């Protein structure tokens, strides 16, 4: 017998169930998955944008606002200047057509490399309860862009702020047929507290996460 068969048989025998799975058991599982009921959710204030901002800031994320997509390059240039960072970045293809050069920025839409310092991405949505970005992988939304650079700048549309993670899943179910290869929830810059439980920002991922809230 295979390891699989042995393990499954051990489980069923130990729980006093016959080795062959009954149809009712399978149906119950299928029904539960089809219903995927939500658990109890904590109260989150009605103004979810305020909650999102508040939580994101408390996680050491920083924030700025842009009115239109065309305003993004100026906001990025301003941030990089303030932080004393070099005016170069890698971005997702959706931002390839913006006039970066006019702001003195060198921004390329390509796969990120280990030594790129700034990555510019969008986000699938944002979660108010915890101040979190929900990112879905895809050909035009490669996850490494938000991971390898020391600075991650993310553009988040205001209308894509949802209350909780459940609402993120609901949005995903509505807009896509299946889960993408990777769904990453990002809550601030990477950190570690492994040495003497002292929180230090910038472990293996970004040292800085900066959001541009798009109206």
């Amino acid at each position, binding site marked *: 017998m295979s390891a699989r068969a042995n393990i499954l048989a*051990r489980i*069923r025998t130990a729980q006093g169930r016959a080795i062959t799975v009954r149809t009712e058991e399978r149906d119950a599982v299928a029904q*539960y998955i089809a219903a995927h009921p939500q658990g109890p959710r904590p109260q989150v204030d009605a103004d979810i944008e305020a909650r999102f901002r508040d939580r994101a800031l408390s996680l050491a994320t920083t924030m700025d606002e842009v009115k239109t997509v065309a305003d993004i390059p100026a906001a990025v240039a301003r941030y990089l200047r303030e932080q004393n960072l070099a005016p170069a970045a890698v971005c997702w293809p959706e931002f390839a057509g913006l006039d970066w050069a006019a702001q003195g920025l060198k921004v390329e839409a390509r796969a990120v490399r280990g030594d790129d310092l700034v990555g510019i991405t969008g986000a699938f949505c944002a979660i108010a309860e915890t101040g979190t970005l929900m990112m879905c992988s*895809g050909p035009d939304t490669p996850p490494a862009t938000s991971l390898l650079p020391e600075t991650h700048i993310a553009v988040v549309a205001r209308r894509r702020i949802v209350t909780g993670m459940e609402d993120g899943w609901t949005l995903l179910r509505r807009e896509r047929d299946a889960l993408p*290869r990777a769904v990453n929830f990002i809550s601030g*810059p990477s950190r570690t507290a492994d040495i003497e439980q002292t929180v230090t920002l910038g472990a293996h*991922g970004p040292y800085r996460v900066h959001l541009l809230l798009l109206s």
Partner: protein
Amino acid sequence: MHFKARAGAKLADVRLQSALKKLQGNFVKGRADRVAELDNFPDIRDAAAAIRDRALANLDVWLDTFEQNATARGTVVHWAETHDDVNRIVREIAAQHGVRKVIKSKSMVTEECALNDALESAGLEVVETDLGEYILQLAKEPPSHIVAPVVHKTRDEVSDLFAEKHHAPRLTDIPALCREAREKLRPHFLSADMGVSGANFIIAETGSTLIVTNEGNGRMVTTLPKVHVAITGIEKVVPTLEDVTTLLRLLPRHGTGQSITNYISVTTGPRRAGDLDGPEHFHVILVDAGRTKLIGGDLQEMLRCIRCGACMNHCPVYQSVGGHAYGWVYPGPMGAILTPTYIGLENARDLPNAATLCGQCSVACPVKIPLPDLLRKLRERQFEQGLKPWHEVAALRAWGWLARHPSLYGVMMRIQARALKAMANREGMIRSLPFGGGWTDRRDFPAPEGRTFRELYKARSKA
């Protein structure tokens, strides 16, 4: 060496004691603060326990569903009955893809398997990338906590270690030490051909694996190398995305005192057409290695465990002796139950007794595991299997016999109470107790005042 002997050494270790003090403040207080953010915490906790029970009640069907959905997405699912099977499967996957370098993110299951040794002996280079685990790999030590593996080490020790192993100037500032590790590890992330991770949960509905991390190394391990192998216990299955969401409200709060970890990564299958990153091959290994021994019996509740570490953070025994005293991968109350079950009660004799049964662990446990009750059941089993020391058994037998002979019992107690009184010093304390040296070594024993409860009761009811 048994727990008792190891515990003695740990109590005398000044550095360890100072390191353990921090745990209390950060993790215990952190949990309390973050739990207070949830207005309906008791409901969420009930729901979390119910979710774990639902998965365990039909574990085989949920695992089968996971496998079907994972396979449909191109994941290769393997089943391992033993730790050796895990090591063999990983070695085979490595050979199949011509792997030379393996990067790992933190995984307690691979600690159970001693996977690193197995891979290194097959000629592979293995690099731990979680900062804590990396430090331990350099120091050649096992983790002492399931969430904060290097909690037993001070910053000074890390400074010395990095200076020696990196052949670099000795840094003392914690951010600088972290930067040094980042720069050492980055080239490994970019050059490894295989990433090995655990999984905090696997999701039946979607065939996905989920990891929670703070450092970002977990994301790299599951994104950059061409092969990703996720290794996890069969009990980690959760039915749906909504269910996992409920559990995620509790895991970081109870683990590190965070409302949410920096990263939660849900990965489903290998790289898709057109993707610029992601592994080309994705394997999941579902591990039994003792878990089915807990199924169906009176210890099944233990399998609800989501490995948050709250039980050890709140345990007065763990707080005093640290994780290494427990002798195997899992320390604290959860370890005192898992270790004897996984490696045999006869190999972990004193562990079920390494607890005061004060109950703090079950109060702190996010999935309501009645840890003290389970410890008690293990103690009973020890007794039934004749694994208790003969003198303890003999003493209990004698006491049991005496207790069933009330008048003789009364006489004996009268003699004893008077004898103890006679041994007391002027403050009414006994300095050293025959057959009770373990007690009086470090503290005095308060002497009885000379008469037994029954004598006093009789005297007072006459009055």
